[in-house]
């Protein structure tokens, strides 16, 4: 007997009788028996499995949040317990896509509210109900831009997360799309000069990140002014949008990003969730599910999936995307987090990130670690350390700190640099202590 499977011998006997066969084997006559027995461990009781998993978990090193100075796409933030308590309710966890809207109003209303919050954050008119993550959301945005204007050249800032750029390349590899990278200037902002040179009538889209991968806050206004009619795609960090003017205000066509900072644990990188917002005029080109408000036959307000004709299950090879399963539960987590924080809470967190990162940068400067770029930054910044930084970084880790990202992983030219991060979880004490450790280790 297996705890998850209810069949008794008696059940099986009766069911076979009803079907009119003598054995389960008879149901498999069409299926060749190619396996005698799978070469896997035998099934275990839950206490043994729990023990094994606990052991595996404990062989990963958990760094105390306040000692984490690495972001680069995944950020340590405070997550109120109420977020977890609600998002783990089985009614959310064990439901599927709201195919039957009348018994899925919980899902549908929550996602409708999520879409509203994403619109508010990004300053856009419409958001879908989630993508897998920031990287794939961006890749889908590029494909969408191509659907909008059928052009091929995509200009992408080198200050967009390198993994996002790689993902775009993969997604677009089978399409008539090619990429040109735009370098940053000494401010760390995407070079407007370079951009102006590259933008032309064949330009499909321009992609920048806000704040960018180097932590610097791009001036979306001057970029928008520079890019003419190209589709303007902005990858945004959601917490920063509580204090930054949203991309929508600068004429962005598509805003995407990763929702991890909004109440999702680091999860070793996944699952997180991608958000995706655009303008109403583009909505029929948008990938993913959209929830809309409507009425039932008694006039009561309710919610349903809308504009499904764009989607794969109806439009098949002509769909705007192949996405089916998305990351609804993580979108819900975002919505609950934003409900708990509210506009003031989110702003407070953003300001705290800003304050801490700037304190850290100042402390760094005092021990001779200079910022590489002079643009304004939010919660991340690049400092120059030394060519053997990665080795030092590992050494610092042994002391309990997750230090700034060795930038050499992604940029040969920044081999001696590190991308540092501070958020509201870091304390003055933890930063002071870290800088001390750093100083002694660097000397």
């Amino acid at each position, binding site marked *: 007997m297996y705890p998850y499977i209810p069949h008794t011998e008696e059940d099986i006997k009766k069911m076979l009788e009803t079907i009119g066969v003598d054995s389960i084997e008879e149901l498999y006559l069409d299926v060749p028996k190619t396996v005698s027995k799978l070469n896997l461990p035998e099934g275990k009781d839950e206490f043994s499995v729990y023990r094994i998993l606990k052991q595996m978990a404990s062989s990963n090193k958990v760094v105390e949040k306040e000692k984490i100075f690495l972001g680069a796409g995944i950020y340590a933030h405070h997550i109120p317990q109420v977020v977890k308590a609600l998002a783990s309710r089985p009614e959310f966890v064990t439901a599927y896509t709201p195919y039957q809207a009348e018994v*899925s109003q919980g899902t549908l209303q929550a996602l409708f509210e999520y879409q509203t919050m994403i619109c508010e954050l990004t300053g856009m008119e419409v958001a879908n109900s989630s993508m897998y993550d*920031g990287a794939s959301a961006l890749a889908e945005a590029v494909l969408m831009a191509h659907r909008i204007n059928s052009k091929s050249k995509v200009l992408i800032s080198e200050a967009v997360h390198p993994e996002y750029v790689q993902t775009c390349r*993969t997604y677009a590899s089978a399409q008539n799309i090619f990429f040109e990278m735009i370098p940053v200037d000494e401010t760390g902002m995407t070079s407007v000069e370079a951009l102006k040179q590259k933008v032309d009538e064949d330009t499909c889209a321009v992609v920048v990140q806000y704040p960018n991968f180097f932590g610097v806050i791009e001036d979306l206004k001057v970029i928008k002014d520079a890019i003419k009619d190209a589709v303007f795609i902005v990858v945004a960090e959601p917490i920063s949008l509580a204090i930054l*003017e949203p991309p929508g205000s600068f004429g962005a066509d598509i805003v995407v990003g990763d929702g991890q900072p909004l109440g999702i644990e*680091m999860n*070793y990188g996944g699952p997180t969730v991608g958000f995706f917002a655009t303008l109403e005029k583009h909505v029929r080109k948008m990938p993913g599910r959209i929830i809309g408000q409507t009425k*039932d036959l008694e006039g009561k307000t309710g919610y349903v999936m809308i504009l499904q004709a764009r989607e794969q299950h109806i439009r098949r090879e002509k769909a705007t995307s192949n996405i089916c399963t998305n990351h609804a*539960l993580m979108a819900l987590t975002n919505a609950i987090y934003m409900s708990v924080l509210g506009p003031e809470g*989110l702003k407070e967190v953003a300001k705290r990130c800003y304050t801490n990162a700037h304190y850290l940068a100042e402390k760094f400067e005092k021990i001779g670690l200079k910022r590489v770029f002079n643009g304004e930054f939010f919660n991340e910044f690049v400092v120059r350390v030394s060519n053997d930084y990665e080795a030092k970084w590992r050494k610092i880790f042994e002391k309990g700190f997750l230090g700034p990202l060795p930038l050499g992983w992604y940029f040969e030219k920044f081999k001696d640099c590190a991308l540092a991060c501070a958020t509201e979880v870091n304390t003055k004490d933890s930063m002071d202590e870290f800088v001390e450790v750093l100083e002694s280790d660097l000397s």
Partner: protein
Amino acid sequence: MTIFEKSAPGRKAFKLPKNDLEEVEIKIPEHLKRKKPLMLPEVSEPEVVRHYTNLAYKNYSVDKGFYPLGSCTMKYNPKLNEAVVAFEGFYGIHPYQPWESTQGALKLMYELKEYLCEITGMDDMTLQPAAGAHGELVGMLIARAYHLSKGDVKRRIALVPDSAHGTNPASAAMAGFEVVELKSTQDGLVDLDELKKHLNDEVAVLMLTNPNTLGLFEKDILEIAKMIHDAGALLYYDGANLNAIMGRTRPGDMGFDIVHLNLHKTFSTPHGMGGPGSGPVGVKAFLKDFLPIPVIRKDGERYYLDFNVPKTIGRVRSFYGNFLVMVKAYTYILSMGSDGLEHASKMAVLNANYLRKLVSKYFDIASPRVCMHEFVVDGSKFVKQTGVRILDVAKRLLDYGVHAPTIYFPLIVHEAMMVEPTETESKETLDHFAAVLEKIVEEAKTKPEVVKTAPHTTPVRRLDDVSATKYPVFRYKK
């Protein structure tokens, strides 16, 4: 009422720790400082709790009852799986930590990959795709890269049966293929003549799910594989229906070159209202150099991520995949073991055939053959006789407290209703479902209006989705 309407300015559910630093002046250029108002809810913690709790009550879920959505494998999600992801050692680690510090996570991923390779008969695998469709895209990009690597640039066609999931053609198109639809036989199987007709040196890949979406096993699969391979093409396996055959046969044994799985179907990870899922992609050895980066590898006792994959299609997302979903699937595999997975498949098939038999008293079944883990009702005669549509039947089921099966899919069956009970349902549940269907059929004959205007007892009555799309309301506005 939306949570925005429950807000009051100044209400708070959140408090930050005291700051030991004074807030610094924000030196962002004025035009980049937020001026646009940010309308988020302003509520207390009790209000947040009640809002989402009451939303939860408006959802049907596996924990509440029978959820026989065909093609979705809504099996029970063990509570143990949820318990183990609560370990901080899993959720509290950063993807860019030194690998030495995440050996537990890497080991888990490695072993999961090995187990899934054994279950599917494949040689290597990526765990990165976030969902089945994402896996399809990866698999099809691998197929594309493979042909291109041989200089075989002509192969632009992906064959997809007309019974396929919508994601198949969509994924093929995203991977740059021209999709050619294969007509099924009357039985709903691959038509070998039709296949032969379409095979030529432009065909890159045939996408199949086996058992297929009618719940039938493609008994000619070995011959199909031979035809495809003889034509120089690849055979792609959509793993949506793997739950029928574990421990009996394997896609790899049937001749498939590329396989995607859905951990949220076969391997019991919960569906989360639509995700996160996980869609690992397995390949035969000759394709492993095309896997997306990074690939999880073992070197002696050390687990690591390999970024040096010679012909990789590239990266398909950030980081390493939906790690916590993998943890749940791994937990499930350890719990079930080789014996348990085989038993699960057998009971899934037994349940489907039993329910099929019961339902066949009231409805035509799309195929007369023994089914695998699911079956499809052909409602066309029923609709003609009663004037009640399958949509109405589905809505009426909700009134009786069960979730409706998948309807209007596969497209090749008129008024289709696709029922997948899974192995975690008891005989009593199946008996009850059949009894409810019987009642509804009776109602359709004697008081069809009740069925046509269903549901009656749900939080909302039937919703107007036509005007919802025609005059879309995308968001709440004050």
